[in-house]
């Protein structure tokens, strides 16, 4: 280690913990999650499944810290995702968070989020989580319309979602995010609008509003590939929903800071921003992905296999030492953000000048009204955002 590095403060990282358990697997969901009842029958009869999983997670944290020399690194954000982390016993959740606190160096301002589903969300549980140190909740509402929720295979109602939000507030959470979905089969534009309005009534600090994506490997994906998924909106209707979403949220004082994410000033999700800015992150738990230095690696997705390998649970790894690949990823992720990408920053981080590599492409995209450039910064225009895949593919 040379002198210069010795005195530089180590960069902060983000920590993600994956809790891959749900009460029920929804038809559209392609996250790494398992319905708890089948899991309980299969593996852990008689054992405390949550405690076992927690033990493995804690073991992994220790292993990663040692192997990757991460001990004591500053932590900007912690995110418990799933699955349904709110389903996990609070004491086990707290045990994991405590381990993270001891192993790394969080600050008072570290953003600590937990994903919750309206089904498993009472005031007591939320209060206990608040007590354990969580300061942000992200509630998977998806819709407030019971019929639409049934179509999505969700096991809660619109009223459950409202109740969960109120519980969060009562438990003292002052930073709450809601997840909404639109473009759902048979959803009318009016209903999509009502969903947004219902969310606005609750006045969350943050909103994620996604168009439903039909993912391969899901129940919806199987139906879709057989041509049996009826009622999906056509391009025109879906576009109208995007426009409606942007307009309503903007009028209500939310800023769209990413393709599908909105926040009131000061409440952008720092954890996710770190992904889009291609910062370092450590993913703990079954199927979790990490990016540390120029290594991207991921754990085995199945909890039982993951548990067996917990000391070194890598299921896969790729090295992104290739500067061009790193640059491509930086643009692919960064251009999702409304603020775009600072070319100087990317150039410094990736060791290669994007202007040199893509100058002509930037120019052409700008000419076509898909990209904006100002003061060494590039970002997608409104039209460019809707065609992001076409544009981002150019950088890979």
């Amino acid at each position, binding site marked *: 280690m040379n002198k210069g590095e010795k005195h530089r403060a180590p960069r902060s990282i983000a920590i993600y913990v994956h809790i891959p358990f749900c009460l029920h697997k929804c038809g559209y969901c392609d996250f790494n999650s398992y319905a708890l009842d089948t899991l309980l029958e299969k593996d852990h009869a008689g054992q405390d499944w949550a405690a076992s999983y927690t033990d493995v997670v804690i073991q992994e944290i220790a292993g990663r810290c040692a192997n990757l020399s991460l001990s004591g690194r500053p932590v900007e954000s912690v995110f418990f995702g799933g699955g349904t982390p709110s389903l996990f016993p609070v004491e086990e959740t707290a045990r994991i968070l405590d381990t993270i606190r001891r192993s790394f160096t969080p600050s008072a301002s570290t953003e600590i989020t937990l994903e919750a589903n309206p089904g498993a969300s009472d005031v007591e549980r939320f209060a206990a989580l608040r007590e354990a140190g969580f300061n942000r909740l992200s509630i998977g509402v998806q819709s407030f319309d019971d019929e639409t929720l049934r179509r999505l295979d969700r096991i809660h109602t619109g009223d459950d979602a409202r109740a969960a939000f109120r519980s969060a507030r009562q438990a003292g959470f002052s930073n709450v995010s809601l997840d909404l979905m639109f473009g759902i089969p048979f959803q009318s534009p009016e209903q999509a609008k009502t969903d947004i309005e219902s969310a606005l009534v609750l006045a969350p600090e943050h909103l994620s509003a996604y168009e439903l994506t039909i993912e391969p490997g899901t129940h919806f994906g199987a139906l879709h590939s057989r041509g049996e998924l009826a009622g999906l909106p056509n391009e025109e209707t*879906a*576009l109208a929903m995007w426009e409606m979403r942007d307009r309503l949220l903007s009028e209500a004082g939310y800023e769209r800071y990413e393709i599908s994410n909105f926040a009131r000033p000061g409440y952008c999700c720092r954890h996710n921003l770190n992904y889009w800015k291609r910062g370092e992150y450590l993913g703990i738990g079954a199927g979790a*992905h990490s990016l540390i230095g120029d290594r991207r690696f991921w754990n085995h997705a199945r909890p039982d296999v993951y548990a067996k390998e917990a000391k070194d649970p890598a299921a896969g790894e*790729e090295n992104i030492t290739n500067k061009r690949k790193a640059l491509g990823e930086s643009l692919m992720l960064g251009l999702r953000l409304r603020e775009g990408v600072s070319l100087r920053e990317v150039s410094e981080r990736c060791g290669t000048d994007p202007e040199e590599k893509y100058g002509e492409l930037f120019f052409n995209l700008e000419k076509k009204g898909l990209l904006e450039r100002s003061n060494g910064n590039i970002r997608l225009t409104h039209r460019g955002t*809707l065609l992001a*895949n*076409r544009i981002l*593919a150019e950088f890979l």
Partner: protein
Amino acid sequence: MGGGGFTDRSRPPDRAVLTVNLQKIRNFSIIAHIDHGKSTLADRILEITGALSAREMSSQVLDSMALEQERGITIKAASVRLTYRAADGGDYIFNLIDTPGHVDFHYEVSRSLTACEGALLIIDATQGIQAQTLANAYLALEQDLVIIPVINKIDLPSADPDRVITQVEEVLGLGGEECLMVSAKEGVGVAELLEAIVERVPPPQGDPEAPTRALIIDSWFDSYQGAVPLVRVFEGCIRKGDLVKFMSTRSEHQILDVGMFTPHPAELGVLGPGEVGFLTAAIRDVSDTKVGDTVTLTRSPAETPIPGFQEPKAMVFSGLYAADSGDFENLRSALDKLQLNDSAFTFEPETSGALGFGFRCGFLGLLHMDIIRERLEREFDLTLIFTAPTVVYRVVLNDGFVEEIESPARLPDLSRVDHIEEPFILGTILVPSEYVGAIMKLTQEKRGVQRSMEYLDPQTVQLVYELPFSEILFDFYDKLKSITRGYASFDYEHLTFRTSDVVKLDILLNEQPVDAFSTIIHKEKAYYYGRALTGRMRKLIPRQMFEVIIQAAVGNRVIARETIKALRKDVTAKCYGGDITRKRKLLEKQKEGKKRMKNIGTVEVPQEAFMAVLDVGREVS
């Protein structure tokens, strides 16, 4: 073919002596309509003469190229020298000279037949005389060959040899009693056939002391021996060590080896009159060894060549481009290699605004083009874009000058053009009489003019049509087969150029003409063609970030128009830490797909759209 390594180079170069008695040589070809059993009979002859052991008999030895075996047709002649002990106790040398079996190769067939004194005319006992039976028989008669009619497949239940005998008598004017009854598959009648060859095919004649004249009947490229011509000597001799001259190209070469396939390559040392064999002379270029050319000796040359030589002339042209423009040099070297073995195939560099650098390639016909395409894709692993094939048009300018154009792009400005002429062919169709109506309808659609109609027997009609060559380019043969349930057969020869009302049809993408899609077409068909092609392209060109307008135009007049609406949304709603690798790979895949497209102006056009020109040609023509 060829196969190096059999020459014993330690042997002193003393003068080889002629040992072969002319009276014991029989030179013959097997000619037949496709699938009438030519290759099977050749195999049987090889087997019976003991040229190949049973172990060596792979099915259909003569069709050596894989492609030929697959298509069941012989593309390059492969000939063998066999020894046969006849019933009279004499040992005979049989030179079995193979002929290519498709209409595109008329000239090559005629040269092979020139090398023979006799021909076995195979006729399928179940099908009778077909168009190529006739065409081949006429070629053989023109060369004054003795024809031995062989009625094959007599073992099949549907065989009707009596009907075929009647056809042979009435259509070909040969004696019915001359017909041999054979089942090449079962080996029936083959022994009698061999005897008939000895008895009926006359021995060759020729003065071994006269100035040497040998006809090139085939040539190929061997990576060790260079271009290797196969010749039939008519007069004089060719010996190892001789300095020879090819009369059309005037190139001179020293003979290193004289040999023949038995079918294993065997050194002969000398070829005398009536003999057939190959010459190796370290000839670099197969274009020096042109089929039909005459080989003579430098020191005492013949005064005149053997008549009938023609420069190979490509009749069908197409632009050929590597789908990946980075493959341009690979394509060039592949074309170079193919041309080594096929001097009838021509290519020259061409530039297309749409497709970049490529080649304008000339072929004898569409089958020839298909063969080249398959070989390029199979042997050289290239993904190719062929533009619509075109015939050669003669453009007569106002000042009387004539330009022959092989590409729609080269059509001069119409204000300078007095008129345009297109090539016509004379097509012969043989068909069961009940399909005459259907044939008449088809030929009318193809702008054909009937020249004659003749009953060969009560069931079989011979129809002769003058047809524009361009009309049989795409699918004439397929359509003919389908409307006659496979019973019609077809053969053609090139006729002449005639004035024709053709126009150039252009395709425009976002107002920009795309040269690769241009075509020359008869005025009456332009509208349907333009509509069908724009319609097909609308389906093949994916939606883009901007609206794409596809137009078909003749001159300034737009005759068809289609619109592809702009894509307005292609965005991944979610992307988080765990998704990045997967999402990146999805986008990379998307980009790969894009790479396979050609950028024409701002429009990305998939390769299939270029191929559509061929399909639409098939539908409309």
